[in-house]
Each structure stands twice: as structure tokens, then as C-alpha cells.
């Protein structure tokens, strides 16, 4: 009897372990399969996608050079993403300091407000920003619609939830006594911030920068409304291409984009362990 119970217990444990592994495997598959297929597709020889491939080629990559909208889009996206990243940090660092360190009466409300761009659908933000910028332009005569300023402004908006969240979490984790120690040793508030607080939360800041970059770089919905006529970001260039043709060119573009972002993450990870922050 006892041995039957023991066998049942072992079986139950084993069953649990298999169940866990299967679930984990399924999750990874769901996340990674699309990326895998995109990479695979980009080497297919046939112009019209079909399985199995007729053969493999690199011509979709070489063909990219002949289509300037991708290179232009890439450069624009890069420029916007870098500016949005800087803008996101410029807002995110002080905002998280205020959220975590001060005793603002409306802290919770402010926190929710700063996270709201995550909740509102991008297309809605895009539309409303577009109308807002038109109104501001009409009122002030500043050329905002269809300008780089407007585009970057919109992108900064969607990076804010990421920067605030990541930096605030990091700030929560550090011992307040460290800042008090700096003040006790003669550092005023500014020098405490520059010499102690910011260096200590560097992992959070770096992670925030990376995420803002990625979020901005891949953004389509806002850019659709905010780009200037004749200019495209990479996601817009891809969308426009897809309206006419579905061939592995898009997969090739995506593969390059994935490679760049992966490289950025790997580089960042050397600097700070992302898994510790995020």
C-alpha cells in the first residue's frame, strides 16, 4: 500500500514537471516562432510566398539597396528613436525622482497619468495628437504638424511609461541611507543627485533608454499621423510596401531590424544586467 502511494507521488511529481515544461515550451514557441519564420522567409527564393520554398537566395537583401525608401525610413526612424530616447529620459528621470522621493500629495494620480500612454491605443493617441498639433499650430503659427518636432514629441509620449516605470523601480530598490550619507558628508541635494543617486540607478536609466529606443523605433500608429509629407519611418515604409506586394523583401527588412535591436540589447546587457532591472 505504502509503495503504491509512493509511486503515485512520484508520478504526480513527474507529471507536474512535464506539464510545466510543456507550458514553458508553448510560451516560448508562441513568442519565438514568428521571429523564426520571418528570418526563414527572408531567404526564400520564390517571390510569392509558399511552402516548401523553391530554394534559397540573398537577393531580397541586395534588392533593399535599390529601394531607397527603406534606407531613408531606417535613417529617419533611427533619428527619431534617438531623439525620443533622450526626450524620454529628460522627462522620465526627474519624473521618477519626484514620484519616488518626494511626498507629493497627488503621487498616485501622477503615476497613473504618466503610465496612461500605455493604456490608450496608439492610433487614438496619434489622432488626438494630430488634432492637438493642428490647434496649437493655428494658435501659435509654429509649424508643428508634419514636422520632426511633432513626430519626436509624439514618440517621447509613448516612451514615458517605460522610462518612468523602469527608473522608479530602480529607485525604489536603493537604500535611502546612501543619499543621506552623501548629505551627511557635505554634498548638497544637487551633488547628491549627480554623484550618488544617478550613478547608483544607472542600470535603470540604461534599460529605460534601450526600451524607449525600441518602442520608438518600432512605432507605426503615431508616426502615420505625424510624419511630414514625403518622409517615412521604417515601419511606414514597410506598411506602404505591403500595400502593393507581399514578397520576402519585408522579411529581409524585418530581419535587419531584429538584428539591430538584438545587438543593442546585447550591448546594453554587457553594461548592466537587464534581467536584474526589468
Amino acid at each position: 500500500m505504502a509503495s503504491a502511494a509512493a509511486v503515485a507521488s512520484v508520478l504526480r511529481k513527474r507529471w507536474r514537471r512535464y506539464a510545466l515544461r510543456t507550458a514553458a515550451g508553448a510560451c516560448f514557441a508562441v513568442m519565438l516562432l514568428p521571429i523564426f519564420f520571418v528570418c526563414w522567409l527572408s531567404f526564400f527564393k520564390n517571390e510569392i510566398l509558399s511552402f516548401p520554398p523553391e530554394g534559397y537566395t540573398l537577393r531580397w537583401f541586395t534588392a533593399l539597396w535599390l529601394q531607397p525608401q527603406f534606407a531613408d525610413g531606417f535613417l529617419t526612424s533611427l533619428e527619431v528613436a534617438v531623439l525620443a530616447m533622450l526626450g524620454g529620459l529628460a522627462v522620465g528621470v526627474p519624473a521618477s525622482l519626484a514620484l519616488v522621493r518626494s511626498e507629493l500629495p497627488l503621487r498616485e494620480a501622477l503615476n497613473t497619468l504618466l503610465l496612461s500612454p500605455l493604456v490608450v491605443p496608439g492610433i487614438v493617441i496619434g489622432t488626438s495628437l494630430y488634432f492637438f498639433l493642428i490647434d496649437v499650430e493655428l494658435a501659435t503659427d509654429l509649424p508643428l504638424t508634419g514636422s520632426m518636432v511633432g513626430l519626436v514629441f509624439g514618440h517621447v509620449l509613448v516612451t514615458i511609461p517605460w522610462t518612468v516605470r523602469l527608473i522608479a523601480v530602480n529607485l525604489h530598490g536603493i537604500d535611502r541611507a546612501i543619499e543621506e550619507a552623501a548629505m551627511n558628508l557635505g554634498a548638497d541635494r544637487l551633488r547628491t543627485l549627480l554623484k550618488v543617486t544617478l550613478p547608483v540607478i544607472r542600470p535603470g536609466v540604461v534599460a529605460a533608454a534601450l526600451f524607449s529606443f525600441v518602442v520608438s523605433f518600432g512605432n507605426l500608429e503615431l508616426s502615420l499621423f505625424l510624419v511630414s509629407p514625403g518622409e517615412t519611418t521604417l515601419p511606414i515604409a514597410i506598411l506602404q510596401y505591403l500595400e502593393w506586394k507581399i514578397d520576402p523583401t519585408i522579411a529581409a527588412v524585418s530581419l535587419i531590424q531584429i538584428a539591430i535591436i538584438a545587438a543593442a540589447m546585447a550591448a546594453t546587457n554587457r553594461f548592466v544586467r537587464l534581467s536584474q532591472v526589468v
Partner: protein
Amino acid sequence: MSPVSSVRLQSVSKSYGDHRAVVDFSLEVAQGEFLVLLGPSGCGKTTTLRMIAGFVEPSAGRILFGDRDVTDLPPYRRNTGLVFQGYALFPHLTVFENVAFGLRMRRLEREVVERRTQEALRLVRLDGFGERMPRQLSGGQQQRVALARALAIEPEILLLDEPLSNLDAKLREEVRVEIRQLQRRLGLTTVMVTHDQSEALSVADRLVVMSGGEIQQIGTQRELYNAPANQFVASFIGRTNFFAGAMTEPRRFRTESGLEISVAAAAARERLLAIRPERVRLGSANGAANSFAGTVEFVSYLGATTEYVIRLASGDAIAVEAHNDRADGLEPLAVGSQIRVAWDADACQLIS
């Protein structure tokens, strides 16, 4: 070394809403004195220390270093050296840079920073550790870095916030001796906060016992132990036996349980009698003014001493501490043995 200051707190209070953390606290710490604020957690001792350091603004009262009123100065203009409970070392800086931090904030010349940092590290016997990062050090070493960092700025006042509480028992004793020797050698005015009475007794020149935000008693170890101002101090400093009752005639105290106890003092109003366990003897009265029969209820052999709890015929339990220092001393008594306990009239402390 820059001149060390005395510290004066004049009727300092701190309230958080309705909660009164520190109430009407007045105290003078002399130059070079080692003063310990002692009390259970929540007694206001840490708040008091933080007011001296400048992190907590008093609701009322003034704080003076020497003759200088620092009440309204921010922490970074006070020149105190604070050693934090968790050390609060800068994790991103080397040991050397941690210790040099305060000197760099004072914009001293490079050579001066270099020299004084090395001196401070030598003082805590950590020379050669300058290039390490704090996380590479043991708890005791981190503690010494924190101390060196506080000393390097040549503070007017050294503040220690439970500096030993994160160390294991053995190290704790070593470090407290070390801190005490350094403090003496440098002649530093020092205020330390602790909840550990043995730690407090071993280092202090003078102690302040606090409870509920108020000073219960200020005095030397001897004064607190032998003449506690109230029941709180008597029970907080060392262990003691209490008997509630009243004086029935001069030099005679009658407990509520009916014991008649001869006391040395003639005071009349006190309602509480305290007798330290080590003043109670086991066995014959041997000329003692008080002697009662009882039964051994609990025995705890501790090496140098044996602790007993004796249940007296009156129903009172009395703790007795016997020194195991005589060849003719008693074998540890068995639970249930009948025994007499005795103590002198002057062993009795009357407490209001």
C-alpha cells in the same frame, strides 16, 4: 583635527501629526564625551540622533554645536560624521572613494584628500583595501569603512546609529572596543544610539534612557543601575525583582503579598521595591536583614553564574543570580529543593 564641539539640545520636540516621537528633550553632551541614547525601538532615540544630524527638523526647540545654533542648517552644513546602521556605503565607489567622498565635497586639494583618506583607512586598519568595492568586503570591514568615512571629514561630532547591530556577536564585541578606543584617542564628542543595554553600558561615559519619546534618566552606568529613577529604568538596565507594596513604618516595606522587608532608606511614599538578583544570597541568613524560605522552581547554569527562580512561601517568585566562584560554593540546587534566600537592607531600591 578640527575642534570637536559639545552638543546642546534645548527642549527639542518632534511630532508626526498626533504622534509625539520626541518630547521636550534637553541634554548637554560635553566635548569628548561618549553619550549613548538607549531605549526600546520606537522610543525616539533614532529621531533624536537624526535631528542632531539634520535629517529631521525639530517641531520645537534648538540644537547647538558649541555656541553655534545649527537648528536650521541642512545636514550638509553641519559637519557631523554619521555611521549608519546598514553602513550605507556607496556601492558604485571603491573603498578609497567612499572614504574620500566627504573630503572631495569639501573641495580640498588632491594631496590633502589622498593623505587624509589614507590616514582614515589606517585608523580602522583597512590600509591596502582602498581599491576594493564595498560588496567585496565582509560586514565587519564594511562597518569600518563606514567609520573611516565618517572620521575622514574630521567631524565636530561623531554620530553612531546602531553601528553594531548588523554584526555577529563575536565581532560586535571587538568592534565596540575598537570604536571606544578610537573615540578616546581622537577625543571625539560621540552620540550613539542603541537598544542593546550591554553594548551601551560597555562604551558609554553617560547614558540617556528613553521611552515613549521622553528621557527617563540620564546618568552613568553606576547611577542607572544602583539608583534607577523609575521602574522602566530599573527593568531596562539589568534584571531586577520588583515587589509592589508600601512603607508601613520607617525602614520597613510591606509587600502586597505580605512580606515584611527591611530596607535601608527611610523614604515613605514609594510603592515599589526592587532587588537585583545578584544581591540575593542562597542559604543561611548570615546576618542579613531579610531572610525567607522558598522552593527552587527553575535553575539555569550559565558557567560563571547560575540563575535560580525561587518561589517564596508568600507566593512571590524571586530571581537569584549566584556566582560559581567558590570551592565551597553550592552545588547547583535541584528543582524542588527547599532553600532560604537572604538579602541585606541596603540591597533594596525604593522606586517611586
